[in-house]
C-alpha cells in the first residue's frame, strides 16, 4: 500500500462512515469546549448570574406609566419653580433664569461685556454732560444728546430688568466702547414724539422754556433735557432777553404754525427756540441772538446747530460768522454735516 494513495475506494463504507462520525465528534467537542470557556470566563468576571435578580430589586426599576411623570418616575418640571441664590450677588433668582443671570452677574457671557461697555459709555455721557458740555464732542459724535441724566437707568432696565450690574465694575472683553450711537439712541426712545408741526405756539413756548427742544437728526425726536439756569451766565443773558425777547416771541409764534421738515430747517428753528429758552450753560453773547434778524441760513447747517446745542449759544444757527466766533467758545465739534439748505423761512421773515 502506497502512502500517497489517498483513495478511499479501498475502504468500505463502514470505515468511511466511522471516519465521518469522528469528524463530527470533533466538531461537537469543539463547540462544547468553546461554550465552557465562555461560561467560565463569565463566572470569573462576574457577569454570569446577572439575569438572576430578585423580585424586589426588579420592582424598583419597573417602567412607570403615570401621567405627568416619565418612565423612570421623575417629574418633568420639578425644578422650574425653585429659586436659586446667586453666589455673587446673593439674590434669589428663578431656576430657569439662573444661567443667564450668572452670565451677566459674573461678567463672563458673550453679551455681558457689551452691555457693560454700553452702560459705562452712557454713564460717562451723562456725568460729563452735566459737568462739562464741551467734552461731549468726542463721545456723542453722532447725536444731540446732552445725556439725559434721568433716563439711562430707566432705559437699561427696559432691556434687562434683572441685571444687577449697574453697580459692578465689569471686565471688558474687548476694547470697544460700544458704538456711541446705540446708547444715545436709546436715550431718546422715551422722549415724546413731539414734532413742531403738531404743537401750537403756546405749547411750544411752554415746552421750550423748560426743555432743550432740539430735534435730533438721527432719531427725529426732541431733546428733553431740562433747562438748568446757571447763575454765572444769567447775568449775561439779561440784556439778551430784553432786546430780543420780542423778536423771539414773534418767531416762535410763526414757527408753531409753519410746516417744517424734520431736517435742517427744523433744527434751525429749534435752535432758535432754544436760544429763547435762555438756558445758558455756556456764555451767551447778546449779539449772538440777533441771529433771527440775519436771516441768512448760511451757518444754519446741522453741525452748527449741534454745536450750538452743546454750547448753549443761541445764535449759532442763523448768525453770521462773526457771531459764531463770539458765541461758541469751544466749538470742538466740527460740522460733519453738509452745507446748510436754503433757509427760506428766515428769509421771508427778514
Amino acid at each position: 500500500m502506497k502512502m500517497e494513495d489517498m483513495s478511499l475506494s479501498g475502504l468500505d463504507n463502514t470505515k468511511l462512515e466511522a471516519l465521518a462520525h469522528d469528524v463530527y465528534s470533533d466538531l461537537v467537542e469543539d463547540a462544547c469546549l468553546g461554550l465552557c470557556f465562555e461560561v467560565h470566563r463569565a463566572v470569573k468576571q462576574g457577569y454570569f448570574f446577572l439575569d438572576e435578580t430578585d423580585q424586589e430589586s426588579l420592582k424598583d426599576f419597573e417602567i412607570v406609566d403615570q401621567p405627568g411623570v416619565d418612565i423612570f418616575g421623575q417629574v418633568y418640571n420639578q425644578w422650574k419653580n425653585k429659586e436659586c441664590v446667586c453666589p455673587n450677588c446673593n439674590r434669589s433668582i428663578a431656576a430657569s433664569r439662573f444661567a443667564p443671570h450668572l452670565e451677566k452677574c459674573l461678567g463672563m457671557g458673550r453679551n455681558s461685556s457689551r452691555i457693560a461697555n454700553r452702560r459705562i459709555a452712557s454713564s460717562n455721557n451723562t456725568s460729563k454732560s452735566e459737568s462739562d458740555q464741551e467734552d461731549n464732542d468726542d463721545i456723542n459724535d453722532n447725536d444731540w444728546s446732552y445725556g439725559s441724566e434721568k433716563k439711562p437707568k430707566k432705559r437699561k432696565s427696559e432691556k434687562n430688568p434683572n441685571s444687577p450690574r449697574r453697580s459692578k465694575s465689569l471686565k471688558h472683553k474687548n476694547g470697544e466702547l460700544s458704538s456711541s450711537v446705540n446708547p444715545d439712541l436709546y436715550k431718546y426712545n422715551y422722549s415724546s414724539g413731539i414734532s413742531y408741526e403738531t404743537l401750537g405756539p403756546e405749547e411750544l413756548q411752554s415746552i421750550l422754556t423748560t426743555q432743550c427742544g432740539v430735534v435730533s437728526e438721527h432719531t427725529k425726536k426732541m431733546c428733553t433735557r431740562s433747562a438748568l439756569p446757571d447763575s454765572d451766565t444769567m447775568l449775561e443773558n439779561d440784556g439778551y432777553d430784553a432786546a430780543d425777547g420780542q423778536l423771539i416771541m414773534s418767531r416762535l409764534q410763526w414757527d408753531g404754525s409753519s410746516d417744517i421738515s424734520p431736517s435742517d430747517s427744523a433744527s434751525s428753528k429749534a435752535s432758535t427756540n432754544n436760544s429763547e429758552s435762555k438756558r445758558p450753560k455756556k456764555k451767551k453773547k447778546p449779539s449772538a441772538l440777533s441771529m433771527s434778524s440775519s436771516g441768512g441760513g448760511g451757518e444754519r447747517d446741522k453741525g452748527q446747530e449741534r454745536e450750538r446745542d452743546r454750547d448753549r449759544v443761541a445764535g449759532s444757527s442763523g448768525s453770521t460768522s462773526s457771531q459764531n466766533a463770539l458765541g461758541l467758545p469751544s466749538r470742538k465739534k466740527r460740522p460733519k454735516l453738509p452745507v446748510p439748505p436754503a433757509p427760506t423761512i428766515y428769509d421771508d421773515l427778514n
Partner: protein
Amino acid sequence: MSKESQMRAAINQKLIEMGERERLKELLRAKLIECGWRDQIKALCKDVIKEKGIENVTVEDLVAGVTPKGRALVPDSVKKELLQRIRAFLAQHST
C-alpha cells in the same frame, strides 16, 4: 490500522486546508444556538458552578461535567445534517 490512520490524517488535513472545517464548525454552532442546545448546556454549567462554588470552579470541572451530556443533547436533525455534509466532502475529495 495505519492506513486508516493515515487516511484520517489526510482527510483532516484536507478539511482544514480547504477551509471546510471552519465552515462546518460555524454551521454547527449556528444550528446548536438555534435549537436551544446552548442554553441547555449553560443551565448545566450553572448547576456545576453552584455545586462547586463560584470561586473554585475551573474549566476542567465544567468540561468534565458538561461535555458528555452536551454530546448527547445534540438534536438528531443537526447531527444528520452535519454527517451528510462530511460524507459529501469525503466523497468529493477522497479520490
